[in-house]
């Protein structure tokens, strides 16, 4: 080799006019020599480097840059290192974005996958959130198994599943057949003598890229077929038949879990999982593997938590699916019975990630009880969402193997039994009993049906040593201070003989299921031979029966009281004279009062860490759009808070658990304006067919009833709250184009704040599409203005002032919001992105960043507020809703 031919001799280096040669004469500081401007990178990365060093560099900027620099491995890697500097809570907030970027933006870099994988090792909540989001992405991409996104999502999903369900294995450190990192590796060995620090510096990136899996083995389908032929079930008893048909109804929800089994199996084909790590010093993977080796007990406890949690969430969703088959009249009874069944397995190692704020020091909350009689089926046309009140102990759940309760759990490791699973709760297999073989074909697998033990067998390796930590239901559950037995808990809830109750509730469950099946079969039969009247009679009798089951002792406790109390509270809240809308009534009771009442009656109420959380379980809807809206509203809230803008918006969180299910945080002190008006107006139903509706009560009337005299301090405070919340929500409705703003989607809380909910229509989709009625920038009715005291009142002026102030502050973040929408809209199925790339640019335009501050003020007054004030279109939409949906305008 000649240096001339290669052009890389000493002279060649000098020819690169790096100026470095000059440095030899005048010794300079390291910083000077290494100034990026002086080494002249071909792409100008100085701004990027400066941004990375800036203390203002935000997590979202980092995510945005991950998209912009997806084409460069080194930059991507550097950005992912930066991600590690942000607090975990912030990371948790942006997990939907991180997962979406990971799935939707193709890159050669393995850094984001590594980051998410490590994050999952560190945080159990992040694991669940990432896992469920990936699950949702996988079901989006189900019909494109060859796509980049599907492969990426599946890969990480497999890794997480392995971590969760298989016994922990040291992460694979082996370099695979990736040429690029191998070339760098070899050359840096050669460079080791000259600058060993440089070899060290690049090693993490070489490892990250070197570990990347190349060959994707998609032998899933075949493997699955073979497994499908395994059939060891001898018993086809009634219970199983019930479960089977229940699963058919739940099949949509379970599709994802079925898919989950596939990924399980695919994971088996991953090579070298058990390879022992050798050498190296720097990677986080090393730290993790060390952790796994050091704390196998902790990992067993985590595995138990993951299992319990997933099973818990899945059971809650299954209930919603099963309720779909139950006639509306019997749904409440069925729901309460179902929850009573779940209650038998509580307390357990479960909480609700994201929604219930965690305790200090990485301690999770422990759910100890669901109050069956407090649960409510919500009004919905085709689905059956329901609301439940969850009792929990703050920070009671840890993975410390030395705690009393956890020692107890670990000691039980020989016994396999699974929580919240009807099959299992009936007859827990004795220790040492071989796993039950269950028919396992593609149509019927899902978590509810296949005992978890069977899923476990699909997980690669080390099954034998995977221990189940679920406690025996009949023994004491240690660790809760004065441990309560399950029987006691049941007794406390049911106020009767514990044993007989436990038995009969199983019978009840079977009866309820049977009834549901017969009912659904009657639906089918109706189109056939049976005389209609006869069918109706049978149906009525069954529904009657189902309702009577509700009077079972377990559920009967405090029932009458609750009814009376409801009425009482309805009267208290907003001067409700009566209520024919049970869901609204339930929401209306003052939260603090309700909490105190429940605490009094709860067997766990005496724990100082006891608390109550209200959550809505939803299935059948993709909640990711809702979640995105809530996220953007929360972000705006942060921005206003940091800038000391005196406005109020409610922070709401949604936990996505699949592409069509999730848990939604409830507004505990609010009531929809529709309900308020309906109650105030009285019992008169609006006449749908043209008849004049009764004179509808106004918000001013409500405020007077609820907060007293206009001049009172209470009233003025409530009015101020109204103004402080109306301004930011109005701005957000305009900026995000939140539509479908009828009064059922706007709440008032007991302090006078307005709260918007339901974000099914925003950005680029609206009800009615092109013929949308809601063309006003936001909803500002005469009624709102009247409540504030008219267009010349101080309150109205304050509203305008706050609106402007909020706008000035928020538009400084116009780029962030439009980037957020742009990033999330790629390859998205969400309706709010139906305008494609234009969605983000239109959003950006609405911020009017080109206007001066004074011009923006004019724009607010003359365009936004003027156009919105009493817009005939807004009124038209309310009237439309009144006529078609019975929603009060």
């Amino acid at each position, binding site marked *: 080799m000649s240096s001339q031919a290669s052009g890389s001799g000493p002279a060649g280096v000098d020819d690169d006019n790096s100026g470095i040669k000059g440095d030899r004469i005048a010794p300079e500081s390291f910083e000077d020599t290494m100034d990026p401007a002086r*080494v002249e990178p071909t792409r100008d990365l100085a701004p990027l480097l400066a941004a990375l060093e800036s203390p203002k560099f935000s997590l979202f900027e980092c995510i945005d840059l991950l998209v912009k620099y997806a084409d460069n491995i080194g930059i991507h890697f550097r950005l992912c290192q930066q991600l590690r500097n942000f607090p975990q809570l912030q990371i948790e907030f942006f997990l939907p974005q991180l997962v979406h970027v990971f799935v939707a933006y193709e890159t050669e870099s393995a850094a984001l996958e590594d980051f998410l994988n490590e994050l999952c090792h560190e945080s159990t909540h992040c694991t669940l959130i990432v896992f469920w989001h990936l699950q949702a992405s996988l079901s989006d991409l189900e019909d494109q198994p060859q796509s980049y996104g599907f492969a990426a999502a599946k890969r990480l999903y497999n890794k997480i599943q392995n971590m969760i369900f298989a016994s922990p294995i040291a992460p694979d450190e082996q370099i695979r057949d990736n*040429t*690029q990192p191998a070339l760098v590796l070899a050359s840096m060995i050669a460079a080791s003598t000259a600058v060993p620090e440089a070899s060290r510096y690049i090693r993490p990136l070489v490892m990250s890229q070197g570990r990347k899996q190349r060959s994707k083995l998609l032998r899933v389908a075949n493997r699955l077929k073979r497994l499908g032929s395994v059939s060891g079930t001898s018993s086809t008893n009634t219970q199983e038949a019930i479960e089977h048909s229940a699963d058919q109804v739940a099949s949509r929800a379970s599709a994802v879990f079925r898919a989950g089994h596939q990924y399980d199996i695919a994971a088996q084909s991953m090579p070298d999982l058990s390879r022992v790590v050798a050498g190296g010093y720097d990677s986080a993977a090393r730290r993790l593997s060390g952790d796994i080796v050091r704390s196998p007990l902790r990992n067993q406890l985590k595995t138990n938590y993951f299992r319990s949690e997933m099973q818990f969430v899945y059971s809650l969703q299954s209930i919603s699916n099963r309720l779909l088959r139950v006639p509306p009249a019997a749904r409440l009874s069925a729901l309460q019975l179902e929850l009573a069944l779940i209650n038998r397995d509580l307390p357990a190692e479960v909480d609700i990630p994201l929604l219930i704020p965690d305790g200090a020091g990485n301690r999770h909350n422990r759910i100890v009880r669901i109050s069956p009689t407090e649960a409510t089926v919500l009004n919905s046309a085709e689905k059956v969402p329901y609301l439940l009140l969850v009792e929990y102990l703050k920070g009671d759940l840890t993975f410390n193997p030395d705690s009393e309760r956890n020692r107890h759990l670990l000691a039980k490791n020989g016994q396999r039994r699974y929580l919240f699973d009807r099959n299992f709760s009936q007859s827990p297999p004795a220790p040492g009993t071989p796993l039950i073989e269950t028919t396992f074909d593609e149509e019927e697998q899902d978590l509810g049906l296949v005992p978890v033990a069977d899923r476990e067998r699909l997980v690669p390796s080390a099954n034998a040593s995977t221990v189940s930590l679920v406690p025996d239901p009949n023994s004491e559950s240690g660790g809760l201070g004065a441990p309560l037995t399950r029987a006691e808990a049941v007794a406390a809830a049911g106020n009767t003989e514990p044993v007989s109750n436990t038995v009969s509730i199983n019978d009840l469950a079977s009866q309820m299921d049977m009834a549901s099946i017969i009912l659904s079969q009657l639906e089918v039969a109706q189109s056939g031979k049976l005389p209609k009247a006869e069918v109706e009679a049978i149906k009525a009798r069954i529904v009657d029966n189902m309702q009577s089951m509700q009077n079972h002792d377990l559920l009967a406790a405090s029932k009458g009281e609750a009814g009376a109390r409801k009425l009482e509270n309805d009267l208290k809240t907003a001067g409700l004279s009566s209520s024919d809308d049970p869901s609204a009534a339930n929401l209306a009771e003052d939260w603090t009062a309700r909490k105190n009442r429940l605490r009094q009656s709860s067997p766990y109420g005496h724990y100082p860490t006891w608390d109550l959380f209200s959550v809505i379980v939803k299935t059948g809807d993709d909640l990711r759009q809702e979640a995105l809206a809530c996220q953007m509203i929360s972000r705006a809230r942060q921005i206003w808070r940091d800038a000391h803008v005196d406005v109020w918006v409610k922070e709401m969180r949604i936990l996505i658990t699949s592409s069509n299910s999730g848990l939604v945080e409830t507004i505990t002190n609010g009531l929809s304006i529709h309900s308020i008006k309906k109650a105030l107006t009285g019992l008169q139903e609006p006449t749908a067919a043209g008849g004049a509706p009764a004179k509808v009560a106004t918000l001013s009337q409500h405020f007077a009833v609820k907060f007293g005299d206009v001049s009172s301090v209470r009233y003025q405070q409530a009015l101020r709250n109204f103004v402080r919340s109306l301004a930011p929500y109005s701005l957000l409705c305009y900026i995000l184009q939140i539509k479908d703003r009828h009064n059922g989607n706007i709440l008032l809380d007991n302090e006078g704040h307005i709260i918007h909910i339901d974000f099914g229509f925003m950005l680029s989709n609206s009800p009615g599409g092109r013929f949308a009625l809601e063309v006003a920038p936001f909803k500002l009715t005469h009624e709102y203005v009247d409540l504030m005291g008219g267009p010349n009142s101080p309150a109205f002026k304050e509203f305008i002032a706050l609106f402007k102030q909020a706008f000035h502050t928020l538009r400084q973040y116009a780029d962030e919001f439009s980037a957020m929408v742009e990033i999330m809209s790629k390859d998205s199925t969400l309706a709010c992105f139906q305008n494609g790339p234009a969605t983000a640019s239109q959003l950006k335009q609405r911020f009017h960043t080109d206007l001066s501050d004074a011009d923006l003020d004019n724009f607010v007054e003359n365009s936004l507020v003027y156009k919105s004030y009493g817009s005939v279109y807004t009124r038209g939409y309310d009237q439309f809703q009144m006529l078609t949906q019975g929603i009060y305008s």
Partner: protein
Amino acid sequence: MGKASSKLSKEELKELKEITHFESKELQQWYKGFLKDCPSGQLSRDDLRGVYKQFFPFGDPGAFSDLVFDVFDTDNNGTVDFKEFITALSISSRGSVDEKLKWAFQLYDLNKDGLISQEEMLSIVTAIYKMVGSMMKVPEDESTPDKRVQKLFASMDADKDGQITFEEFSEGSKKDPTILSALNLYDGLV
């Protein structure tokens, strides 16, 4: 290696097994990966620059990439084929320290006279500093390529003749724990 076919022939395998530390299966696997990244089976100088740009975006890796290319391209035909690639990988990841140092020496001895001059060492160190840019933190007494070269010569050039022989290079590298551990960074990982 001739035309790129999807699998290594028996003869090729036999030869590679002899000159590398890899098994047949591993060789086939790496060959498959090599063809995926480089379908023609021939890696050009520009290809390698592209790789370095991916790994060192914050500096200018051009000079280092070219220097290293010449080490990979043992037959000087202007491309790196699979044999040349896997040989380098074998030595750097599975070879003994002596093997690694012998192979590495080629990077520094640019004029092939069996000695590393200060000029030669400076060009390598400069190329590496340029490549890594400001991303790497180094101690004050190595803050410029020149300082680093002086430090290296002070420790390696035993007879102080301003040239480093292979023996001096080898001994000097082995007695410096930082260099020694850098040489073994990937042991057991490939």
